[in-house]
Structure formats: C-alpha cells, structure tokens
C-alpha cells in the first residue's frame, strides 16, 4: 500500500511556533507603523523603516515560510522531512538573530549587535538549507517545484550573506558602490530570488490542488524559472560593473518571468473545477493580482518619459510596500488558513475520524474574523498607498491603524487554531 502525505507530516509542535512568532512579528510591524506613520514619507534608509522591514521579512515572512515548508514538503515532494530537530535548532538561531538585528537597525548600530545578528541568522539559514537539501535528495524526481524551492533557498542564503557584507561596508567602506544601490540589490535578491520564487514553487503545486485545476500548461513556469534566475544573475553582475543596459535586461527578464507565472495562475484559475472560493483562497488570488502594481511601477520607472515621475522616493516606497505587504504578506496570510488548521486538525482529530462527528479544519478558526481581517487589510493597504502617494501623514495614520487591526484579527485566528482542543459535535 502507498504511503500518504499525512503519514509523512511533521509534528505540529515544530510548525506552530513558526506561525506564532510570525503572527507576533506582523502585529509588531504594524504597531511600529501606527506609532511612526511619518516614517513612510522619509527615505527608506532610515532606522525605523529598516528595523520594521526586517521584522516583517524575517520575523513574519521568512519564519512562516520555514514553518509552512516543513509542513508542505511532504505534500510537494512526497517525502518526510529529514530532521525535525534541525528545524528546531534553525528556528532558535533565527529567532535570536532577528531580535539582535532589529535592535541593531533600531539603534543604527552596525557593530556587535549587527555581527551577532548576522551570525545567528546565517547559521539558522544554513541549517535550514542543509535540512531541506537532505530532504529533497530523498525525492529522485527533478520536478519544477523542487527546483524553485531549492533555488529560492539558495538565494535566501545569498541575500542574507550579502546583507551582512553590506552592513559591514557601512562602517568600513570597502565596496566602491553606493550603499543605496547595494541595499536595492540585497532587497531585490530577497524579494525575487527568495520570496517570489518560493511562492511560485509552492503555488504551482498548491493552487491547482486547492482549485482542482490540473489542465494548465506548465511551460510558463519553466520560462519563469529560467527568466527570473538569469535576470537575477545578470542584475548582480551589471550592478557591480555599473552596466546600465545589463540592469535593464535583468529587470525585463524578471518581469517576463513573473508574467509567465501569472499566466500559469490565470490558466489554473479559469480552468478550475472548484468555482466557490473560500476567504483564504480569495486573499491569495487578490495578493497575486497585486503583483501587477510593482511590475507597472518598474516599467514606468524605466521608461519615465520626460521625467514624468518626480516623486521617486514615494514611488519606491509604494513599490516596496506593495511587494512586501500587498503581495507577499497578504498571500502568506491567505495560505496560513490553507496550511495551519490542517496540521492542528490532524493532530487533534485523527484518532476520532469516522468514529464520531468531528469539526472540519475550517471550524478551527473564525470565518467572520477572517473576513474582517481581509476587509481591514485591503482598505488599510490602499489608504496607506494613497497617504504615501499624496504625502499626507494623517491618511497614512488611518491606513496603518486599519492594517494593525487586520494583523490583530489574523493573530487572534492563529491563536484560535493552535490552541484548539477536541470538541464533539
């Protein structure tokens, strides 16, 4: 008899702390924005925004991605995680590293706290990477999902290492390139190399599975893989050698890759058998469509006819905010409802299935809270974008407050799920 993914699932005690740390991090991130709305009108290289952004990308996005990958590896690669113990060790290093890093950025101190933070985070990611490679080796197929995930983790390692070197460069200037350019490079490798590629790798398996849509052609995904990775490599070299055409080529390749991913998602969506979407799926689909905003902004920035765009800083902030909050965070929030409840539900009810009537995974959280979360998130997000665009602090304040409320709703649902106890119907 064949083994199912359920038998390969990790212990929920490894997965849940990742979601709790992630939930706390996004609430704190939103709270920092509520207290400092004007920070979104300053240049992005300011201590508050650097600390808040790293809290979001490492504390929320990366931590949840790690936890979710431990759960999704059996689903995607059809193998058991190599070591849960390594998962725990990696989380401990990551958590301590994040605390040091936020402290370092908050005080703009690139000495001991920064070195400690970087060391802890690099160790955490190295352990995670080794664990993932050893796990993936058990699966002999060279699937596209596997390629995306392993390459994404490779870029994560690269961008963290690059971030560390750029941080050192701030106190001992040894790289003869503007630190703002280096920061852009670090951010883009993180966003497109790690997050977006991970989303493509995981999404190309999960979206067809949840939507019951298996007819979409996978060729656009292959093109996306080649285009995004060649774009990133060309981009890095071009930036170091100040080769402008190379940078533009890299941008075009990355955009082309993402458009191909969107093509795949569109085909999957229109050919789906499951027409009715739950709130989690709605959130994920909306987040994916938001990807078009930063793409349009990049194109406008390259073309910029007659210097039409003058508010470069505002647009750069909108670009970054849309990618990190509107697309990646929203997608993770949506997919949380498609992952976390299942692993908890399996733990709580597996022995009772068929013997008595049990709640369903969706009964572990409040659908009403999830809907309020979606509404406050979307209204808050667009209000913040408008506030940045028109440089009005009071509008940003309203937006960040709504966004903060959305994160509280999200956190309440996470706690509801992870603390769920057996209930009989």
């Amino acid at each position, binding site marked *: 008899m*064949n083994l*199912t993914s359920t038998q390969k699932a990790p212990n929920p005690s490894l997965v849940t702390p990742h979601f709790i740390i992630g939930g706390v991090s996004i609430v704190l991130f939103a709270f920092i924005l509520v207290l400092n709305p004007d920070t979104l009108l300053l240049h992005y290289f300011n201590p508050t925004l650097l600390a808040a952004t790293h809290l979001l990308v490492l504390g929320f996005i990366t931590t949840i991605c790690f936890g979710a990958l431990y759960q999704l590896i*059996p*689903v*995607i690669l059809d193998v058991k995680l190599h070591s849960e113990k390594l998962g725990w060790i990696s989380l401990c290093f990551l958590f301590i590293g994040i605390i040091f890093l936020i402290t370092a950025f908050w005080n703009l101190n690139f000495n001991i706290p920064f070195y400690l933070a970087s060391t802890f985070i690099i160790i955490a990611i190295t352990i995670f990477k080794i664990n993932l490679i050893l796990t993936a080796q058990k699966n002999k197929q060279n699937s596209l999902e596997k390629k995306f995930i392993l390459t994404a983790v490779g870029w994560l390692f690269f961008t963290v290492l690059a971030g560390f070197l750029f941080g050192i460069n701030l106190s001992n200037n040894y790289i003869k390139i503007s630190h703002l350019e280096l920061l852009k490079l670090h951010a883009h490798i993180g966003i497109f190399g790690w997050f977006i590629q991970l989303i493509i790798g995981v999404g190309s*398996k999960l979206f067809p*599975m949840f939507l019951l849509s298996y007819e979409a052609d996978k060729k656009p995904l292959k093109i996306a893989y080649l285009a995004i990775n060649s774009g990133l490599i060309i981009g890095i070299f071009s930036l170091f050698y100040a080769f402008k055409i190379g940078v533009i080529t890299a941008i075009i390749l990355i955009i082309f890759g993402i458009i191909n991913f969107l093509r795949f998602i569109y085909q999957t969506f229109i050919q789906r*058998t*499951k027409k009715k979407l739950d709130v989690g799926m709605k959130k994920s689909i909306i987040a994916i469509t938001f990807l078009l905003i930063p793409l349009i902004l990049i194109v406008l920035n390259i073309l910029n006819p007659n210097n039409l765009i003058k508010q470069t800083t505002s647009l750069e902030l909108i670009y970054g905010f849309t990618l990190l909050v509107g697309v990646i965070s929203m997608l993770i929030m949506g997919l949380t409802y498609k992952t976390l409840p299942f692993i908890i539900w399996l733990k709580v009810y597996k022995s009772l299935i*068929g013997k008595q009537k049990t709640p369903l995974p969706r009964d572990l959280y409040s659908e009403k809270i999830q809907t309020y979360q979606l509404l406050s998130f979307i209204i808050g997000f667009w209000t913040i974008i408008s506030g940045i665009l028109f440089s009005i602090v009071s509008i940003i304040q309203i937006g960040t407050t709504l966004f903060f409320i959305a994160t509280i709703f999200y956190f309440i649902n996470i706690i509801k799920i992870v603390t769920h106890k057996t209930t009989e119907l």
Partner: protein
Amino acid sequence: MTNTTSTPTDMQVLNSLKSVIDPELMVNIVDLGMIYNITIDSSTNLIEVEMTLTSKGCPLGDVIMQHATEVLKAQYPNYSSLINLVWEPAWNPSFITAQGNKELE
C-alpha cells in the same frame, strides 16, 4: 440502517461511502470520483475498495482512507474492509459526478 446479515451490494457500499467527505473540498469521495472499484467477497467476508486521491500529495489522504474504513466497519460489522490506494488512472476533474460538480460551484 444497512442489513448486516445479508451480503451487501456494490451500490450499498458506494452509498455508505458517500458519508465520507473530503474536509477541504466539502464533497463526498464518491461524487468526487475517487472510488475506482469495489469488490465484495462473501466467502471471506471482505470488502475491498480501490480508491485514489485528487492529488498525490493530498495532505488529508490518510484521514479520508481512515474515515472510509471506519464507515465500512460501522455499516458492515460482519465484514472486514481493505482500502487500496491506487494512482492509476490518475484522478482528473472529469471523474467528478454531476452532483459533485454542482456542490463545487
């Protein structure tokens, strides 16, 4: 209530399995087209069910199979049951019944 003394028919077993719901899709496994074959051997009192999952990595596969086993055990206490998970032919949405499609809309 199913007659527990006489030999159940394929149709009765199929109807019993309609109480097994895919927890993600909220449609029963029969209308999802996941049941491929049912064999009832009255000489050994064995019900053998050949079934598949909508996706090879389906995280709920084990639970669905366990649910099916428990349903058969409760409905046909004189019979033992064996659920065989198969991947050929690979499941695709055309296996869903009209009722299943209606419920997914």
